[in-house]
């Protein structure tokens, strides 16, 4: 009885304390419960950090779009920071013109699409061989695959140029596309590695069932394994598209004719070209216009992969979680 009385006493003093605002009381108690992993302060800090970091990661894109839409007057005006006074599309038309955008887009997409197809077909097949079959020299050969990842293309570049000039692949997209069909090209070894990790984590039962039903090895791979490996396929496709689109070293080495150049390789020459043309054009001869056009051009170059990525982003992330890249 007495105990009960005392209990009520404690409760009443507490409630007196909190009478003013139960909500604040709740928040204070949440903040003070430090052992609870989801405390309010901790959460606030986490979100602050996350938004701050996301800002750093997104800044280049914001900057590009905003700068491209600014008129030269807005550029000089220090009060115009994020929102241009008027939408100035002149930069874009100028960039489209001097990049020869649509033709460049066609060429770059052609190379990127075929190189990606090459990577997906060859790397998944080779990786399947490495993951599911036991044959002599297999482990040594796989170490060689890892070696191809480690050795930079820069080491081989001169011999490759000589080789390609002999078979007439210089200034020809063959030099960028054909090696991908053999599991080489831009980071081919890495894709083999990713696919192998995925296949190693996959259960054998489906394939064994198919083999017992009389399916041959290649057909098993093509009709049973590949459809199951959707997530790894997606991850590799996206990475391959992005890397091929932005690749600068090999195209700059093999393709020197301006008419054949891919979009990203056109950027530096564009910069020079604009500088010269602006100097002749006395009315708008200032660096501010130049920066606007260059940013517009840069944005136009990455726009296609940006769109592709935004469409596939959600599935890409799911694929990464599911694919068991790390076995």
């Amino acid at each position, binding site marked *: 009885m007495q105990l009960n009385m005392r209990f009520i006493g404690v409760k009443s003093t507490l409630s007196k304390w909190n009478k003013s605002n139960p909500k604040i009381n709740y928040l204070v108690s949440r903040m003070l419960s430090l*052992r609870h992993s989801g405390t309010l302060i901790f959460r606030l800090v*986490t*979100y*602050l950090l*996350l938004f*701050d*970091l*996301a*800002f*750093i*990661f*997104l*800044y*280049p*894109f914001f*900057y*590009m779009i905003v700068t491209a839409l600014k008129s030269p007057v807005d550029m000089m005006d220090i009060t115009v920071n994020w929102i241009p006074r008027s939408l100035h599309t002149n930069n874009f038309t100028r960039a489209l013109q001097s990049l020869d955008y649509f033709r460049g887009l066609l060429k770059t997409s052609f190379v990127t699409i075929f190189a990606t197809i090459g990577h997906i077909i*060859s790397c998944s*097949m*080779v990786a399947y*061989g*490495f993951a*599911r079959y*036991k*044959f*002599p020299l297999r482990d040594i050969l796989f170490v*060689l*695959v890892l070696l*191809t*990842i*480690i050795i*930079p293309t*820069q*080491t*081989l*570049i*001169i*011999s490759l*140029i000589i*080789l390609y000039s002999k078979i007439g692949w210089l200034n020809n997209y063959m030099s960028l596309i054909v*090696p991908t*069909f*053999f*599991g*080489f090209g831009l980071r081919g070894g890495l894709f083999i590695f990713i696919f192998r990790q995925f296949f190693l984590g996959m259960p054998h039962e489906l394939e064994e069932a198919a083999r017992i039903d009389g399916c041959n090895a290649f057909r098993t791979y093509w009709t049973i394994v590949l459809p199951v490996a959707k997530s790894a396929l997606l991850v590799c496709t996206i990475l391959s598209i*992005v890397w091929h689109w*932005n690749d*600068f*070293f090999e195209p700059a*080495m093999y393709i020197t004719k301006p008419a054949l150049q891919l979009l*990203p390789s056109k*950027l530096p020459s564009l910069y020079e070209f604009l500088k010269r043309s602006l100097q002749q054009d006395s009315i708008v001869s200032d660096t501010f216009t130049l920066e606007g056009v260059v940013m517009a051009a*840069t944005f136009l170059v*990455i726009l296609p992969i940006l769109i592709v*990525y935004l469409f596939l*982003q959600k599935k890409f992330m799911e694929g*990464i*979680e599911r*694919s068991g890249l*790390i076995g």
Partner: protein
Amino acid sequence: MKRKRYKKWLTMEKKHTIEGYLFILPWILGFLCFFAFPFFQSVQLSFSNITKITGFEMQWIGLENYAKAFVWDVAFVPYLNQAITSTVFNMPLNLVFSLFIAMLVNRSIRFRGFFRGAFFLPVLLGSGFVLQQLLGIGVDQQATEVARGIVMPDEVLMYLGPNVINYVNSFMSRITIVFWSSGVQIIIFLAGLQSIPVALYEAAKCDGATVWESFWKITLPMMLPVILLNSIYTLVDSFTSSTNRVIEYMMFLKADINNYEYVAAIGMIYFIFVFLLIAIIFGLSRKSIYNLSER
């Protein structure tokens, strides 16, 4: 009739072996054409002099090209030094931050999809000319100045003195480029974090471990192989990025056909350094993985 005989002739095991080789056949062909042959030719070229440009006839001159790189060429050694130091310093930063970001995003938070998408986006900038344009204008510094201002306002830093502000600013501007090149690493870490069984954390929690403790005792040891993978990826990535001075130098030299054998020698030196660094990382990681398994 003939086919049946052929089938009997092959045992199950032999058939298996042949199928395996058939699957990796394209790679073997590619390896011979696009890797082994160019590699040995590069080695040969780096030790010789091109006497006839048509047909690339070579003459053995020994270590002369290598001597040129280290003794005669004033530009190469500083570039190599710069490339290696920036890689060695940026790699740990890159690993720490990408693991940190991956762990932040791996928690149950709101806008998870948005954050994951956002942290991968700079990969789309690539490491090529697009990034170079942006760095040329100084976009990286603008980005960090604003971002740092949100977390650490200047007013707070003022209390610590101007030296601290300078120090923080220079550190942050160095780090932006690290952030922008960490997209793939974040994703690899995310995949790794997902593969750690939740039961381990639950068991640790029941035994009274704090979040901090379970990070050091569970997350980090489980992530060691992933950290190894990531450090090698980071290394290779930074050695092939266009912001790398050696690569710029090679692209500049390659314009003149008389420099071909010299570029090949530089490429070989470059590869030797990359290989050494990777060997060191492997050595270190083997030791640490071994130590952890001892515990």
